């Protein structure tokens, strides 16, 4: 080990010993940042906004407004109800609440009614306002969605019930349609058959008059036949009488004559019988003819009556046909309507069925605005960690380096150091190395603590992170050394360091986005070491990017380190002798 390195090690050992033994300095410089990161870890290891105090006002609280307030309370918001809107609003000014929620009068869910929530926000609390707005909007959206979800659930349920009913009643409807169709067909058949039924009733077709004529003719014929029979009988008798006379008159034996006479007599008997019968027949015929006449008359009467009835039937038939036509038309219309209804119901059913999104959640929020981080969901600590670690390094370096330098400057041993054959650069370098070592140690501890809150994500780009942390520590150590050599008392140096750190913070996006600054100011802010280091570390820690992809910022960082180192050397050589001499002169 050459003399330079040996002396450096000696000086570093001494610096660390002094720093550790200066308890207050050690506490502030070493333990302070560790405490900060630990507390930050605990404080930011969540994504919720706690302890936001919400004031509410409503002319009349009701179930809906109360449910909204309960929701806020359940989500750890501290809710205070104010009796007047003005008091609620002024409570924000007094800092008693962060936001005031005013419910519109009669804040209820009702038909054709839109509820309104008004928020009073204090924009002077710029950091808080977005968080409060975000939290409130989220709560309102949640509540609104909850209500919407309920309403939609009802609607969807109704739709589903309708769909079920349509499906359930569809067979009945089909039956009804089918029956209707069947009835229609039957009516048509009936109509056809009725139309086919001829109700033309021609009484003459019965031949009643002919029958009467025929009856007369038959009677005439019967009468004629009876007359002829009577004549024939008479002729037969005459003939028998004559025949008997002839026989009697004949030579025939008496016996023969007798036998013949007997025969003649039997023939006369028979003729008499026939004549009797003929008489009977005539009588019967007469009675029958009378009866026939009566029957014919009756028949004619019946026919007439029937005709009258037939006429009535024909009228009824015609009427029925018309009515059947009407009924058919009505049935047709009814069927058509039924089909229309069925079609409509089918359409409704199809439409309901075709609704793919029936989940009320999806209906309420068909487009889910899912604001995804570029990386997986993490706690606030993950997001602010790069800025936080740079801030800790910055403030630690800005306090540590001046502390070390002023410990040396204020130390009586400063003179003896000057008298030692050690190059001034060695002291400078040793101070830098001391800062570097302590900050590296701190960074390691910070990273170790942070991993508790980060899990394994931090180690994805750890090699780049280490390089950047080293460069960050180097830069801020050099800047801290400038502060240390510029000031001659711990008080002024501390003030200077804090002021410088505050300027770096002010010119960063910690308070307000850089993008909101005027363009010329933004250009300056982009060269701010804090911004450069934060951006680089953010890229490596959060996005796991290569530092070489961010070469412009890397060059700015390296260039800043070179400039800071040059300034430190310049100030050191200008101030070293002067500061020793001042102290020396003061003492002597």
């Amino acid at each position, binding site marked *: 080990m*050459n*003399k330079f390195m*040996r*002396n450096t090690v*000696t*000086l570093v*050992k*001494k610096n660390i*010993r*002094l720093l550790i*033994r*200066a308890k207050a300095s050690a506490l502030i410089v070493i333990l302070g940042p560790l405490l900060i990161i630990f507390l930050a870890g605990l404080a930011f290891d969540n994504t919720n906004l706690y302890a936001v105090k919400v004031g509410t006002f409503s002319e009349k609280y009701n179930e809906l407004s109360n449910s909204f307030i309960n929701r806020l309370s359940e989500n750890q918001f501290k809710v205070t109800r104010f009796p007047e809107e003005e008091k609620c609003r002024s409570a924000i000014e007094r800092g008693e609440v962060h936001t005031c929620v005013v419910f519109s009068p009669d804040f209820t869910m009702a038909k054709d009614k839109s509820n309104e929530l008004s928020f009073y926000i204090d924009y002077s609390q710029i950091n808080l306002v977005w968080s409060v707005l975000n939290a409130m909007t989220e709560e309102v959206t949640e509540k609104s969605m909850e209500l919407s979800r309920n309403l939609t659930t009802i609607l969807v349920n109704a739709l589903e019930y309708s769909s079920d009913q349509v499906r359930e009643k569809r067979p009945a409807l089909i039956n009804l349609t089918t029956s209707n169709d069947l009835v229609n067909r039957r009516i048509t058949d009936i109509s056809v058959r009725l139309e086919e039924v001829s109700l033309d009733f021609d009484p003459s077709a019965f031949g009643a008059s002919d029958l009467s004529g025929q009856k007369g003719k038959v009677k005439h014929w019967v009468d004629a036949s009876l007359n002829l029979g009577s004549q024939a009988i008479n002729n037969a008798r005459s003939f028998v009488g004559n025949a008997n006379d002839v026989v009697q008159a004949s030579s025939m034996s008496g016996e023969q004559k007798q036998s013949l006479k007997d025969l003649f007599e039997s023939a006369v008997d028979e003729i008499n019988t026939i004549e009797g019968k003929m008489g009977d027949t005539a009588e019967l015929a007469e009675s029958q003819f009378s009866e026939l006449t009566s029957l014919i008359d009756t028949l004619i009467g019946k026919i007439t009556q029937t005709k009258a009835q037939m006429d009535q039937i024909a009228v009824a038939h015609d009427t029925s046909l018309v009515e059947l036509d009407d009924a058919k038309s009505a049935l047709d219309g009814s069927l058509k309507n039924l089909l229309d209804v069925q079609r409509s119901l089918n359409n409704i059913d199809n439409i309901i069925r075709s609704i793919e999104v029936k989940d009320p959640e999806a209906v309420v929020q068909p487009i889910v605005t899912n604001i995804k981080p570029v990386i997986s969901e993490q706690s606030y600590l993950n997001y602010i960690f790069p800025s936080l670690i740079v801030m800790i390094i910055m403030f630690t370096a800005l306090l540590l380096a001046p502390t070390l330098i002023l410990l040396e400057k204020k*130390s*009586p*041993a*400063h*003179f*003896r*150091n*000057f*008298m*030692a*054959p*050690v190059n001034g650069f060695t002291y400078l370098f040793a101070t830098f190395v001391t800062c570097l070592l302590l900050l590296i140690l701190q960074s390691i501890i910070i990273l170790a603590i942070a991993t508790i809150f980060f899990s394994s994500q931090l180690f994805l780009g750890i090699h780049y992170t280490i390089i950047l942390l080293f460069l960050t520590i180097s830069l801020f150590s050099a800047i801290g050394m400038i502060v240390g050599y510029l000031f001659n008392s711990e008080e002024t140096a501390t003030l200077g360091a804090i002021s410088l750190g505050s300027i770096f913070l002010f010119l960063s996006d910690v308070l307000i986005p850089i993008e909101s600054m005027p363009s010329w100011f933004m250009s300056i802010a982009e060269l701010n070491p804090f911004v450069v280091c934060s951006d680089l570390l953010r890229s490596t820690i959060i996005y796991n990017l290569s530092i070489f992809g961010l070469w412009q910022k890397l060059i700015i960082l390296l260039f800043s380190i070179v400039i800071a180192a040059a300034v430190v050397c310049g100030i050191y050589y200008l101030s070293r002798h002067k500061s*020793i*001499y001042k102290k*020396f002169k003061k*003492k*002597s």
Partner: protein
Amino acid sequence: MVDDGIDFSNSKDLIKAGWPKEMVNEHFNTNVQKSSSLIGSAIYIDNISKSFNNRPVLSNVSLAIKPGEIFGIIGLSGTGKTTLLNLIVGFLEPDAGDVVVKTPEGSNVSVLKFPEMIKSIFGFSTQYPSFYSKLTLKENLAYFGELFGLKQGEIYERTNELLRLVKLKAFENTLAGNLSGGMQKRLDIACALIHKPNILLLDEPTADLDPLLRRQMWKIIKDINKKGTTVIVASHFIDEIEHYCSKVAVLNKGIISFEGSSDDIKNKYTTNFEVQLRTSSGKYEYLLQELAKHSLVARNKMLDGKLILYTSTPKKLLSDLFKIVAKHRDNVESLDLAKPSLKEAFEALVQ
């Protein structure tokens, strides 16, 4: 002196190491030119002048300090004693003149031109201790030893040796800030001696110490000197300088008013004897009134209840003293007659 392998007393080595040839030649030529003045000197202060804000503090100061001496520099406050020491070690740059130091190797080096080269030659204990109060005694010594390039073994030995020398061995693990004022002074001297310097400069080494501690301190300084270290002491305790220093320089209004031994100064600047008287009554007004009539006393002063009288006729004065005291029915409790002190000579010189 060897640093980083370079022998600074060797001009060839320096040129080889990259030093400008002209500077090296000038340096060594200067030494040659001054060699006559440096013969036998550890330090030669050559016409050195220094002013601050156009206010001259030192004007054409020249001194030659021989090896092994305990060289005392006395002067009133603000006369430039500390400035002179600072110029010797190269902490301050003179407006004019130079300081040439003999290295252990025997070559002479200009402090002005090669301030880094002579740092190992000097050990400087300033008026206010210069060490780390938050380091222990051992740590302080080890730290400065390491800065001066001592090896660990050497540091260990040297630390023990020095702590024993300054009688602080028992406190080696105590934080330096917890030591008493006297102990801190001794530790500071030990720190100044850690690298075995040829020349030890002490600025007011006994300031703020009680008489007992001052004596202890001087014993230590003597012990250091006995080991061969040239000691240069700046102090306003003139009696101590008179007692312990082999040579004295009186610095007055920025110039060396006198350089030589204490006796030389006293012989040159004083003729009076010092009579120290203590009476039972403790009242001396009557005595001074009576003595004034006889013009026997050159001057007087009161110190610690004693009346101190300076006279060139001590026998006559003593005779008169007894008579006057007896006349006023007072008693002489103690009476000392001494040769004139350096202090008196210094006061005479300054006045």
